[in-house]
Structure formats: structure tokens, C-alpha cells
């Protein structure tokens, strides 16, 4: 049986990644390239907030210390956050946001699909809700990768830059850390090698259609899942946690 701590830590990787990405997508609110896409990105952000809440609630329940979803979201510092480095990266231009989303969905689609067969009943239920959202997010981001890749010369260059900038943060996605390995052994999490094959296939298919190439021989950064982040996360958290930190212990 996997240790409870490993289960909690692995859930926090998913929960924190969802929340930090929602936080980033929320920054687009009111600033999108066209009103219709503003709404699309907000919808995605809302899906991610909802997902993070389910996951935090489950983690808090497993901890059994009487903490709430908000305690987990608002009262942990950078070192305790376990989100992927990819999701804390800045929005950049729309191409960066699209590529960040696409890489993540290309991982999450096979991941949550497989998680529907988890030995853990709660994760199984969360996965079966999440997979529907993820399928849509994957579709949205894939279509934009293709549009930007096969759009104008300018958009092609811009999305190429975004790929170069963000590929180094994709290695971590399918690189299991120790808490995840325990879960994989117990069939609570799916095997990451299989997920990686599917993820690569999704990326290659989309890139081929978009006339884009995935850079090889890239140095892959790691550490997010263990709490080793870029400097960016501190700013995200100080923004997000400001009220809870400045006025502790209150109802909002």
C-alpha cells in the first residue's frame, strides 16, 4: 500500500498545477486577443479552479488535520508548492499561452484518461469528470497550435519561439518523482512511460499539421514537483495569498 503521504503529495502536484495555471490564465481576463477567446480562456481557467478545489478537498481530507481547500491554497509557501514548472511560466504572448496549454493537455489527456482506472476511488471519480474538460482543452489548444503554426509568417515565428522557450519545462511532466513512483507501483497512478508515448504522439501529430518541429537535445528543467521553483512562483503566490496573509484567519 502506498503511504498516505505519497498520495497526498501526488495529489498536491495535480492540485497546485491546476491552481497556478488557473491563476496565470486569469491574468488574461479582459486582455485577450479577441473577446470570444477571452471567454474561451476564462472557461478553461474556471475548469482548472474547479479541479484544484476537488483535489485540495481530497488532500485535506486525507491529511485529516481539519484544513480546508483554502488553507492548502493560500497558506503554503513556495517550497511547499508542488506545481509543474511549466504552469508557472509567464503568459508571454498568446502563442506562449497556447503552447504552455498544449504541452500540458498533451500530457493530461492520456494521464487523466488512464487515471479513470485508478485503484483509488476518489481519483477515479475526479478523473472521469476531468477527462471531459481535458478533451476540450486539448482540442482548443491543438487547433490554436495549428492555426498559429500554419497561419502567417509572423505567427509561425512567434509560436516557434514559444516552443523553444517552453520545451525545457516539459520533461518534468512524465518524469515520476518518488511519491508518484509509489502510486504507479500500486496502480493508483498510470505508468508514465506509456503516457509519454501518447503525449509525444499527440504533439507530433499536431506539430506535423502545423508545420512545426519539436526541438531535440533540449536540457529539461526539473524540480517543481519537489518544491524547487523558478523565481516566478513567489510573485504568483504573493499576489494570490495577499489577503489571507494580511488578514489571517478570517471568512471572506
Amino acid at each position: 500500500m502506498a503511504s498516505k503521504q505519497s498520495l497526498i503529495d501526488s495529489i498536491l502536484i495535480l492540485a497546485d498545477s491546476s491552481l497556478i495555471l488557473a491563476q496565470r490564465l486569469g491574468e488574461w481576463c479582459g486582455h485577450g486577443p479577441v473577446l470570444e477567446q477571452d471567454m474561451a480562456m476564462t472557461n478553461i481557467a474556471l475548469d482548472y479552479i474547479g479541479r484544484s478545489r476537488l483535489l485540495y478537498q481530497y488532500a485535506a481530507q486525507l491529511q485529516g488535520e481539519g484544513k480546508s481547500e483554502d488553507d492548502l491554497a493560500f497558506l503554503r509557501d513556495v517550497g511547499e508548492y508542488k506545481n509543474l514548472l511549466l504552469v508557472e511560466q509567464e503568459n508571454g504572448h498568446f502563442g506562449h499561452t497556447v503552447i504552455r496549454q498544449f504541452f500540458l493537455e498533451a500530457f493530461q489527456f492520456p494521464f487523466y484518461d488512464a487515471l479513470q482506472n485508478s485503484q483509488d476511488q476518489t481519483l477515479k471519480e475526479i478523473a472521469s469528470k476531468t477527462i471531459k474538460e481535458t478533451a476540450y482543452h486539448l482540442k482548443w489548444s491543438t487547433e490554436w497550435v495549428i492555426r498559429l503554426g500554419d497561419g502567417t509568417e509572423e505567427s509561425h515565428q512567434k509560436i516557434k519561439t514559444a516552443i523553444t522557450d517552453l520545451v525545457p519545462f516539459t520533461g518534468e511532466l512524465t518524469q515520476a518523482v518518488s511519491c508518484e513512483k509509489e502510486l504507479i507501483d500500486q496502480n493508483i497512478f498510470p505508468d508514465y512511460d506509456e503516457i509519454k508515448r501518447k503525449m509525444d504522439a499527440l504533439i507530433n501529430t499536431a506539430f506535423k499539421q502545423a508545420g512545426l518541429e519539436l526541438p531535440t537535445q533540449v536540457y529539461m528543467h526539473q524540480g517543481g514537483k519537489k518544491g524547487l521553483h523558478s523565481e516566478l512562483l513567489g510573485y504568483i503566490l504573493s499576489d494570490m495569498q495577499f489577503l489571507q496573509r494580511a488578514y489571517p484567519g478570517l471568512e471572506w
Partner: protein
Amino acid sequence: MWPLFEIFIRAKNGLDHKHVGSLHAADAQMAIENARDVYTRRLEGVSIWVVESKHITASDPKDADPFFKPAEDKIYRHPTFYDLPDEVKHM
């Protein structure tokens, strides 16, 4: 600017698609997805049709009288036009 699309939504299976408004999209596929985010945020639909606005041909309001008035006096097309004895309950 992206072309304008008219959006039609089927609220639930068994009902007709109904015009709900319009939006801009680069192509029809994007129009469907935009319609999903713009017009079905509160479970308003189970199916979406989109058609580029320029492809809609509409009757001219100036023709409304010759078009629609002549139907006015043809009340014999309606079941209530016919008097039947009360004994015939359902017909």
C-alpha cells in the same frame, strides 16, 4: 476582422435549433467553439449550428404584406373552423 456567424442552438433533444445571436470567428469550426463558450455557459444547449451571416437570404420586410397577409383569411386551414357535434369528443 473575422466574419460574422449566426448561431443556432438546440436546447434539448427533440427541439428545433433556435437562433440565439451571432459572433465572430475565423472559420466555422472556431465559430462552433466560440458559440459553446458564448452561448452555452449555463447548459443552454446540446447541439450547435453555425452559418456565416452572409449566406443567409432573408425575405424583404417590404414584401411582408404580399407574402404573409394572404394567409390571413384562410381560416379553414385551422381545426377550430369546423363545427362538430359535442358527442364527437376527439377529432
